C-alpha cells in the first residue's frame, strides 16, 4: 500500500492529477479535489505521474 498526501493549503484544485491517476484523484461537483488516502502499490507510478503534473507541487507519497 502507498499513502498519499495532498497539502490542501497549496492545492488550487487544478485537477491535473485526475488525468494521471483517476482511481485516486477526482474533482467533485463543486470542482474541489477529492482523493483516496491510500492506494495499492500498483498505483505508485500513476501517483508519481500525478506528482509530476501538479502545478502547485502539492502531492506527496508518504513513505
Amino acid at each position: 500500500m502507498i499513502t498519499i498526501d495532498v497539502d490542501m493549503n497549496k492545492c488550487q484544485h487544478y485537477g491535473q492529477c485526475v488525468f494521471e491517476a483517476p482511481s485516486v484523484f477526482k474533482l467533485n461537483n463543486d470542482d474541489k479535489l477529492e482523493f483516496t488516502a491510500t492506494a495499492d502499490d500498483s498505483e505508485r507510478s500513476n501517483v508519481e505521474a500525478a506528482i509530476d503534473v501538479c502545478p502547485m507541487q502539492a502531492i506527496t507519497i508518504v513513505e
Partner: protein
Amino acid sequence: MSHPVVIVGASMGGLRMAEALRRFGYTGAITVIGDEPYAPYNRPPLSKEVLAETVSHEAVAFEQRDSTADVNWMFGTRVQATDLEHAVVTDVNGDVHPYSALVVATGLRSKRLTVPNGELRGRHAVRTLDDAIALRRELVPGARVVIVGAGFIGCEVAATARKLGCDVTIVAPGTHPMQRPLGTELAAEMQRRHEAQGVTFRMKTAVTDLVGTLAVDGVALDDGTTIPCDVLVEAIGSHDNTEWLEGNDLDLATGVRTTNDLRAVKSTGEVWDNVFVIGDLARFPNPIFDNECRRIEHWNIPTETAKRAAQVFTGNAQGDFRPIPSFWTDQYDNHLLAYGVLSLADEVKLIDGEISGDCVFGYYRDGDMVGVCGIGMRSVVQRYRANFV
C-alpha cells in the same frame, strides 16, 4: 564501457529526463551538467506564492527521487561548446565529456532592456531563484514598482507586488495585458481585474531611458512622461540558451528544431539519432494541431518531452508524440487554466459562465477548437480538454 548520457541543463527538464531514463529501463551512466548553483527547482512559484513569502531553495526545490541518486550531478558548471560529430561537450573548465546520447535542456534566459543608463542599480528580472531572492528584498510596502512587459510573468509579479503593499505600474507596448495568448476580451477583463486591485497600466508605451544617479528612481517613456520608480522589473521575454550548440549545423532559428521524436534536425533535414531536445527549447511538430514545428514554453512540456525522449532512447516509444499543452496562472483570486495553443486562434468566444465572474473561453482556428481557457469552472475546462486527446 559506453559513454554516459549527458544532459545539459539541470532544471525541470534535465531532472525529469534523468528520472524518465531510469523509469524506462536505462541503467547506464547519466551526467547532468547545469550552470546554476542549485539542484533543480520549480520556477512558477518565483513570480507567485513563493515570491509573496520567503524565497529560498527549500521552498521551490523538486524532490530528489531514489531512482536518480546515482546520477552524476554537476551544478555550477557551464557548458561552453559541443561537437556533435565527435559526440563530446566541453565545459567552462575545459573538461571534455564524451556522450552516448546528448540531451539539450538549457531553456531560456530573460531578455533585458537596452536603454541609456542601464548600469543603474534597481533593475530586476524574474527567471532564476537568485533573481527572485533579489527582487523579494525590494518588494516592501510603499515601494514604487514599475514592471516592463505585460505577459504572464509581468502580470503575476504585479499581483504579488500589490499583495505585498507596493505601488505597481505596468508599462507595455500592446493594448491589453496577456492579449496575444488570451484574446482581446479576456485580456481586457484581466486588465480590469488588475486595475480593481490598484495596478496602473501604461499600455502602448515603451521605456526610452532610465533616470537616477546610482539607482533607478524614474523611468522615462516614449510619450514624454517620466514615472517614479524604486524597483524596475523587466519581464519582456527571453533569449534561447543555445550559443553552446552553434557550429553544428542545427536549425537554431528559434529554439532547436526537432522531429516529432524530439531528435535534433540538421539544416539539411538530416536527423541526429542521439541528440534530443526537451523543454522550452524543443521546436517540434505536434499532430494535434498540424505539421508545423512549434515550441511550447509551458511548464508541462519539460515533463512530457523528457518522457518521450527517454521512451525513444530506450526503444519504448509508440505512435506519434501528441502532448496536450497546458498552462495555468494565478493572479489574486483569479486562477486561470488552459489547454491547447491559444495563440493559433482566429476566433475567440465566451463559451460558458460570465465574463465578470468565472468564465470559459474557446479558441478556434478555421472553426476547429485549438484551445480552451477558463477562470475557475474546472470541470467545464476539463470537458473541453477531451478535444485534444
